[in-house]
């Protein structure tokens, strides 16, 4: 590799190679260093001087000419984020930014018969208030792109990314004439790098962030933004945190980059991905059946600096047809840079990656140089030639119940590739996500995003469930048992457009498995599903909707706030009379307040926390836990006491000791020790008799103590079913501290 990587490739070497029938390549050249690249999902980086270059023939002695746009007035400071060539190779769409004060906008460059610019590009001028990037042509004379413009309107702030800093990019589409603008329902984090598949689906990478899940994976959606499907990267299928910049080789086979989420200048190793397997002579596709081959095993899969002559790959593109094949192996067009290709190492040396264009042979691992301008990043090579248009997918049928609301549901709630549910599901909780744009920088010690409860849909006798919810919102679901406790947490956000539907066969069913939905046969769809639609102005704060035949002892709140709701329940039940931060407190011979001891290993500073469920008036002021001059976080004493050492303290350089267990486990009240103390009454059907409790005939804490003891503690009592439900909902939502009501503003 070290030798081959430095061997130049002259015209003779490609004359009979896989590019012999290719007359020209288009290459995106950007001026290094392109500042602000950030993680693999960022999209706003700008440096003037970007251009599209035509290389003909595609060999080391080919002639490079500027295709666009320095020859046209007004484009002197242009940078280009990305581009795509039309199926007939007669036009190019690109995302261009005219200056630092401009946003990326979409431009179409028409080509003449010689593959040269026929004139200056036209601007689709969608909305200069927002970025429009990464455009691709899709069938039907349309363009799919990514944008930070919000499908919910200008007055609704776009979601923030995982760090609550950058605005997320979302899917949209428009006709090549600049009409018919449409936006996809939003993910809670970025979506980037769209590309077409022969099936007509749009493949892209999206940042999955829900609790511990924090990575980029491949997802596909129809061009009308219906029928979202996971493709690759989840369920342990990827060797890296993030998989991105995918391109289809053949149906069922992709090449993609794979890397740490950050520090690698949006470059990584190359994976050859198979999306399915032959089983019994039939080809099946599903994430569980997918597999990969690492074509560049020497390239680090993480964020560490790469070795000399190993480098990293910025783009990978298949060469179509037999010319791209080398047996089972592939010839690929790649953009590659030598050296560490790691931002900190390069930054410390005052250097930048020098990406050039190469022909990569996966059989030998060799790279044959095609083009490299040492003063520019040479990236995203594409063959300038017509290509077959993917099949057009008909727009999805409306859900039949509402043009304004999205239909969500499942045909068989208990069916999942993740294994059987650990109990009988009687309902499905639906939760809506939000992010830092609502004014919170943190949501709680477990670091789950903000979410609010939308409602609980009943599971019918045939195991189906369905509900109508607002479209365009990220949501996730949790089947619940008869006590309202989550049986499993679906740890991805989904979104469905208004009038559209997302009714799955089960959780994680195979992609090639048809789901036959027969209204009138599926019980949940036999009549209008429960309607959880809400006006934005009151969303999250309105009354809980319960189907008439599924009565619940609801709390009346959809947006649970620790300090308002959960602390209110603790106060009402007088929990703080015993659990008062006093390590010596004994109740009928039992210690009431155990302790946690945090030790910062670097400074040997120690902080001891004693269990305390009393209300804190100044959140964080008195109850934050600190090392030297620094707090870890500022939440109330009860939050720390019940959530415990939820953070990954080991990675933070903190050791934990003491005897206080974690009482509330995020998204897992079912296995939380607190559940035994609460011992909730049955909700479905509602039954408060001792025999119907979650742990039948066991006491509900503190009722195991004598009447005298309880009287001595201000008549402390057990939680009511409504109060218990608050604990269950907050735990299963991710142990959140802040709810929408903490904003002090109705709606959002």
């Amino acid at each position: 590799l070290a030798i081959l990587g430095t061997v130049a490739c002259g015209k003779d070497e490609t004359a009979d190679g896989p590019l012999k029938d290719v007359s020209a390549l288009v290459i995106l050249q950007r001026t290094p260093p392109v500042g602000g690249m950030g993680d693999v999902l960022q999209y706003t980086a700008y440096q003037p001087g970007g251009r599209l270059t035509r290389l003909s023939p595609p060999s080391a002695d080919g002639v490079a000419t500027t295709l666009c746009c320095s020859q046209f007035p007004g484009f002197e400071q242009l940078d280009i984020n990305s581009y795509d060539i039309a199926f007939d190779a007669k036009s190019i769409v690109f995302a261009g930014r005219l200056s630092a004060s401009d946003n990326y906008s979409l431009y179409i460059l028409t080509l003449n018969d010689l593959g040269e610019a026929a004139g200056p590009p036209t601007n689709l001028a969608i909305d200069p208030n927002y970025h429009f990037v990464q455009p691709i042509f899709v069938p039907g004379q349309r363009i799919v792109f990514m944008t930070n413009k919000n499908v919910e309107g200008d007055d609704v702030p776009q979601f923030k990314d995982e760090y609550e800093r950058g605005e997320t990019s979302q899917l949209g589409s428009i006709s090549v004439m600049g009409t018919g603008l449409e936006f996809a329902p939003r993910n809670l984090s970025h979506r980037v790098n769209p590309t077409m598949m022969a099936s007509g689906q749009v493949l892209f990478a999206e940042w999955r962030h829900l609790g511990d899940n924090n990575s980029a994976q491949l997802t596909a959606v129809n061009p009308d933004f219906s029928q979202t499907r996971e493709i690759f990267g989840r369920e342990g299928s990827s060797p890296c945190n993030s998989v991105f910049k995918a391109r289809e080789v053949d149906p069922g086979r992709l090449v993609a980059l794979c890397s740490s989420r950050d520090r690698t200048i949006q470059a990584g190793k190359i994976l050859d991905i198979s999306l399915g397997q032959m089983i019994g002579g039939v080809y099946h596709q599903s994430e569980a059946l997918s597999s990969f081959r690492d074509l560049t095993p020497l390239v680090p899969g993480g964020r560490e600096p790469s070795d000399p002559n190993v480098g990293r790959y910025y783009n990978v593109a298949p060469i179509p047809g037999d010319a791209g094949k080398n047996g089972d192996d592939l010839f690929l067009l790649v953009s590659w840079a030598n050296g560490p290709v790691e931002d900190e190492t390069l930054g410390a040396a005052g250097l930048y990656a020098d990406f050039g264009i190469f022909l990569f042979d996966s059989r030998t691992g060799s790279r044959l140089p095609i083009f490299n301008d040492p003063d520019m990043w040479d990236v995203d090579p594409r063959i300038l030639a017509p290509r077959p248009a993917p099949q057009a997918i008909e727009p999805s049928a409306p859900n039949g119940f509402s043009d304004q609301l999205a239909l969500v549901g499942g045909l068989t709630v208990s069916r999942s590739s993740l294994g059987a549910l650990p109990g009988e599901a009687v309902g499905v909780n639906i939760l809506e996500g939000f992010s830092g744009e609502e004014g919170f920088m943190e949501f709680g010690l477990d670091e789950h995003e903000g979410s609010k409860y939308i409602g609980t849909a009943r599971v019918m006798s045939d195991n189906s469930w369905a509900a109508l919810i607002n479209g365009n919102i990220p949501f996730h679901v949790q089947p619940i048992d008869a006590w309202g406790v989550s049986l499993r947490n679906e740890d991805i956000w989904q979104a469905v457009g208004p009038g559209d539907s997302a009714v799955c066969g089960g959780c994680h069913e195979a992609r090639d498995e048809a789901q036959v939905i027969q209204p009138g046969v599926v019980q949940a769809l036999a009549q209008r599903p429960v309607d959880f639609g809400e006006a934005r102005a009151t969303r999250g704060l309105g009354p809980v909707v319960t189907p008439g035949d599924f009565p619940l002892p609801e709390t009346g709140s959809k947006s649970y706030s620790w300090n308002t709701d959960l602390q209110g329940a603790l106060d009402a039940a007088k929990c703080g009379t015993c659990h008062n931060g006093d390590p010596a407190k004994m109740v009928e011979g039992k210690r009431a307040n155990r302790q946690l001891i945090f030790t910062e290993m670097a400074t040997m500073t120690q902080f001891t926390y004693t269990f305390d469920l009393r209300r804190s008036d100044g959140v964080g002021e008195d109850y934050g836990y600190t090392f030297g001059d620094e707090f870890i976080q500022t939440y109330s004493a009860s939050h720390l006491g019940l959530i415990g050492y939820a953070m990954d303290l080991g990675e933070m350089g903190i050791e934990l000791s003491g005897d206080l267990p974690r009482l509330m486990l995020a998204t897992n009240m079912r296995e939380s020790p607190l559940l035994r103390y609460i011992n909730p009454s049955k909700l479905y059907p509602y039954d408060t008799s001792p025999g119907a409790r979650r742990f039948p005939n066991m006491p509900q804490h503190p009722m195991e103590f004598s009447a005298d003891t309880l009287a001595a503690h201000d008549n402390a009592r057990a939680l009511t079913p409504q109060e218990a439900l608050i604990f269950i909902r907050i735990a299963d939502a991710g142990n959140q501290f802040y709810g929408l009501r903490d904003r002090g503003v109705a709606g959002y």
Partner: protein
Amino acid sequence: MRNVMNLKKLAVAALLGVMVIGLAGTAEAGRGSNYSAIMSAINSRNADSIINELERAEKLICTRCIDPVIRLLDNEDYRIREVAAWWITRRPVTKRIVAKTAEARLRGTDPRLARNAADTLGTFQHPDAIPVLVETVGRSDFPSYVRASALQALGRIGSIHGEAAIIAGLSDTGGDARMAAVEAYMRLRGRDGAPLATLAGDSDAGVRLRVAQAAGRYRLEGARAGLEQVLLTDADPMVRRNAAWALGKIGNAASRTVLEQAAANDDISYVRSAANLSLRSIR
């Protein structure tokens, strides 16, 4: 409840200390970050490196890192100031101290420190900072870039309690402050944009650019005449493009003539194409 003590002062057994130091030296704290990595990034003076490293250090417990990061609040690169302030928002004790210092700086006389303080408070996004930021918007003794930073901070906080100062900022003598006021106004929710209409023909190209964007977003009929003038005469093609787009969003057929002129005669292709698209939308 709180019982903070320093084990060093308690002279913990040397063996334990050695063990702990050994462990700490090999551990990579936070999400892949540590003190050395942060210092390496800071010393590189590379904005991307610093931003990435501090993001990774979001949860890092590192008291040694606090002073170096606080010093970044006075870096000349706004992106570095911003990420340093963001990192400090994760450390509430430090944040409170820095916020107090920032308030004092805004009430002082050093314009550079005041600008940096306003940027810091803007990243903190805490409404407690609104009063001092409002005061700063009224400080004519400061250069306009300080008031611009204060207006930007009010926009980031996005509270209605900053609205009066933001609207006052639309009349600032400095173009940078007026532009910041326009951007801050657009961050307020539920507004109709009316106060922006008169700025369509502002003397500052940056203001005209942003006002054209705002006029399209709010469909500001009151800005139409100014936008039509801008479309035909502005020296900046991006301003003309945005004006053409905004006129299409406003959608008044009376703009047809100027849009047709721009579509036919403008020297710049993207102005022509924006005008053409707008002509379609007002048919």
